[in-house]
């Protein structure tokens, strides 16, 4: 019974929403605007703890960036304008989704290229192996008499 209860409690825990660092006092009154701020904040990297978004991070700089995002939204900026402003200060690094640029082409297409190379390699490997079994006898040099005698001797010794 105890175990069932424990399991139920753990299951309930899984239902709890993700914990955000966004404090109630930062939030905008208009839910639509706040939703936009969340969309923007999700994609902006916290520059202190670099693998979190500003919405996830408790760092003070992240908090100030969240406030700045909301200030700009209230001032009438579009999502793109807010993001462009932050990028103009911190560079592309601040974006958790790196943009598609000449410099990042390898980053985006690298895995596809490597996958392609792998497929080609496998294809070549099997093709060669199939042809290889046919070619093996065609290109082979027949045994000389001395070699034949040596083999016979070894085989006899086995018996």
């Amino acid at each position, binding site marked *: 019974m105890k175990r069932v209860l424990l399991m139920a409690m753990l299951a309930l825990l899984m239902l709890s929403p993700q914990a955000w660092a966004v404090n109630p006092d930062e939030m905008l009154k208009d839910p639509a605007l706040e939703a936009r701020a969340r969309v923007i904040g999700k994609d902006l990297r916290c520059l202190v703890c670099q693998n979190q978004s500003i919405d996830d991070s408790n760092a003070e700089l992240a908090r100030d960036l969240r*406030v700045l995002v909301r200030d700009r939204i209230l001032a009438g900026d579009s999502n793109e304008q807010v993001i462009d402003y932050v990028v103009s200060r911190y560079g592309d690094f601040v974006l958790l989704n790196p943009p598609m640029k000449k410099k990042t082409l390898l980053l985006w297409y690298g895995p596809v290229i490597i996958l392609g190379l792998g497929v080609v390699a496998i294809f070549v490997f099997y093709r060669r192996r199939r042809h290889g079994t046919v070619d093996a006898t065609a290109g082979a040099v027949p045994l000389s008499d001395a070699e034949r005698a040596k083999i016979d001797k070894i085989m006899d010794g086995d018996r």
Partner: protein
Amino acid sequence: MNRLVFLLPLLVLLVIGGYLAVGLTLDPKKLPSMLEGGPVPAFNLAPLEGRDARGFSNEDLLGEVSLVNVFGSWCVACRVEHPFLMKIKENDWVPIHAIDWREPDRTAGPDWLRRFGDPYTLAGDDPRSKAAIAFGVTGAPETFVVDPQGIIRYKHVGPVTQQVWDDTLAPLIEHLRAEAANKSKGEGG
């Protein structure tokens, strides 16, 4: 030829390994500054308590080479560089202006300066990171070299030490001063 094919994966591994090894030596906290070569962002900060009532704005940076130093009383590395900033001030090498970043209250920054000494010409209070974000600051201390036209010419992350000064800041400041002198001579003649 066929044997070489088997060496290929090893070769690829070595190349990737090489890149990763280089990656280990890089500091992910050091980001290229977006503002180098561009004008100082517009900002207007309230003065620190007990200091010059002017405060500090981007217009104060026009006219001469100066440093803008981002510090906070909470910042340990700022304590490390502080004696050297005092040395710059005592020798009158270059004016240093301060962005006092994210103080817990109005008195923390001024108290810190009273206690350890005040190397700054102008100083502004930036409790909500308004100026810090405009400057693209990620951590304190950071120091910007600003030329007489108000263009950011260099950003130094971390404490300013004698070595940083000798190797980077002093030559750059000298260069910028010479550049400005040439320009004014050109305009005069």
